[in-house]
């Protein structure tokens, strides 16, 4: 009996492997890798120094600054929400739990444009609260609060949806043991729950942050596109592209693409290194 070509009956014939393998690699290469390669090629088409100049103009720096501020507010708030919801859902039984969990996913299936529209209908000058707020000199639209609200909406589910399956899977025995031994609620969370969920939490925050810095549709409606003041990085890219400054647009785009690549690498590392700790997430 030769061991060299031991083909199992559940193996695909070689022609099928070649056909499907080529289709898969070809499609992914054409649809996903080619656009990414083009971003870097276009960004560097006039040399590295042109790209550097494009990302250090005052307007570009202001956009980077604004994007970082919006993410720095939205991501922690959504993280607190995610932990709080996962605690309630995973550690307690209550009626309507399934409805709550599916409502959390809502921002994923709703268009970012719809989110922007909904906030305009409430806070816009012809919206419900717009005129009242204007009377108090509070500006939501075309200012930082609007940009933060838009970012919060679109990144809303990320942390919660990673933590809920993870914490449900881990059950409540360890926490109950800690509490019955006299630990306070906060201490139980910090010493028992947090170490158990830290990699899942990091994973969720990572995805939340990438999306927060890259959000375009919702922010585009609420920001007002004021150069140097309310333009985030994605809005700045779109403005440069529409003004035919392709090197500039792709230079700033390359910065965001690099962020996406770093996110993907960290995500793959987390999945590879902490596969067990994250297993619950991927079962759902």
């Amino acid at each position, binding site marked *: 009996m030769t061991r060299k070509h031991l083909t199992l*009956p*559940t193996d*695909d014939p070689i022609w099928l492997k070649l056909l*499907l*393998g080529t*289709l*898969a*690699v070809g499609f*992914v290469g054409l649809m*996903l890798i*080619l*656009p*990414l390669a*083009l971003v870097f090629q*276009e960004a560097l088409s006039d040399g590295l120094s042109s790209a550097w100049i494009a990302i250090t103009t005052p307007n570009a720096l202001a956009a980077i600054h604004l994007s970082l501020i919006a993410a720095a507010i939205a991501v922690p708030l959504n993280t607190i*929400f995610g932990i*709080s*919801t996962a*605690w*309630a859902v995973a550690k*307690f*039984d*209550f009626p309507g739990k399934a409805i*709550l969990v*599916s*409502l959390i996913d*809502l*921002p994923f*299936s*709703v*268009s970012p*444009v*719809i989110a922007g529209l*909904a906030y*305009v*209908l409430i806070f816009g000058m*012809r*919206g419900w609260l717009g005129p009242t707020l204007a009377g108090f000199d509070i500006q939501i639209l075309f200012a930082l609060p609007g940009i933060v609200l838009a970012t*919060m*909406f679109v990144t809303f589910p990320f942390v919660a949806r990673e933590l809920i399956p993870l914490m449900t899977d881990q059950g409540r025995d360890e926490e*109950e043991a800690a*509490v019955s031994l006299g630990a306070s*609620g906060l201490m139980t*969370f910090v010493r028992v729950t947090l170490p158990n969920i830290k990699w899942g939490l990091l994973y969720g925050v990572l995805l939340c942050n990438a999306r927060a810095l*890259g959000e*375009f*549709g919702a922010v*585009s*409606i609420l920001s007002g596109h004021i150069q140097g003041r309310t333009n985030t990085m*994605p809005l700045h890219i*779109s403005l440069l*592209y529409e003004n035919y400054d*392709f090197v500039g*647009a792709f230079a700033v785009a390359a910065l*965001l693409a690099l962020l*996406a690549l770093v*996110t*993907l690498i960290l*995500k*793959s590392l987390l999945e590879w290194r902490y596969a067990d700790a994250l297993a619950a997430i991927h079962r759902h």
Partner: protein
Amino acid sequence: MASRRMAVVLRGRRHVLPGFGLSLGFSIFYLGVIVLIPLAALFVWAFQSGVTPFWTAIGTPRVAAALKLSFGMAAIAAVIDSLFGVIVAWVLVRYRFAGKGLLDAVIDLPFALPTVVAGIALSALYAPNGWLGVPLAAHGIRIAYTPWGVLVAMVFIGLPFTVRTLQPVLGDIGRDVEEAAATLGATRLQTIGKVIMPQIMPTILSGAAMAFARALGEYGSVIFIAGNLPAISEIAPLLIVIKLEQYDYTGAAAIGAVMLSAAFLILLALNGLQFWIGKRR
């Protein structure tokens, strides 16, 4: 029944863990303020002056064309993504080859890459002077600034949904059924078509529904390649933006209500599919 409910209540009361009221209260408050109240406001706006203005706003040729384009292209994109999603997931789960980890990681690119970056990249790629635009133009095919550009962007954005829903399910399918089929004399293609496909059909459908929902609402990656010619390559989300710029809140809310209803229906269908999958296991 009553005693069971009683038991549930008692079990809830006996919880030793603290923070139930606080965590649930905060979650519901935050969910309400950020998501539910704004979305409810949209429906109120769309119908506050009655159903007739709503239908008038939806029925104009430009709006009708945009909705038709968005729904139609999103459906075609979901089909293409499902087809290639099955192939890519199958290759990733069943075959061993060099660079598999890289292929696997790249699938998430449309999730991680900001939509505007994808949008300008696709636009430049398929433009008449772009890397793919030049060879396509030589064959008389135009993608950028036509409805097909909308389709390309929607396929791009939806692919991870179909691949990522299928991967774990394909991994879970027991080899024993396939072995049984092979022992009973089925060819490999028969096994794939008659044993594996029926098992993963609900999952294919739920991946397709997610890809459809995402494609329908997608804005950033579509508008640059679409060219946005009214009634030809103008998607519904863009028309919402245009209506808002003209301060036509009711018109924008009407389109928004149609799209939001579609999103709700898809979410409902997805929950139904999950239930179906759960029952079959």
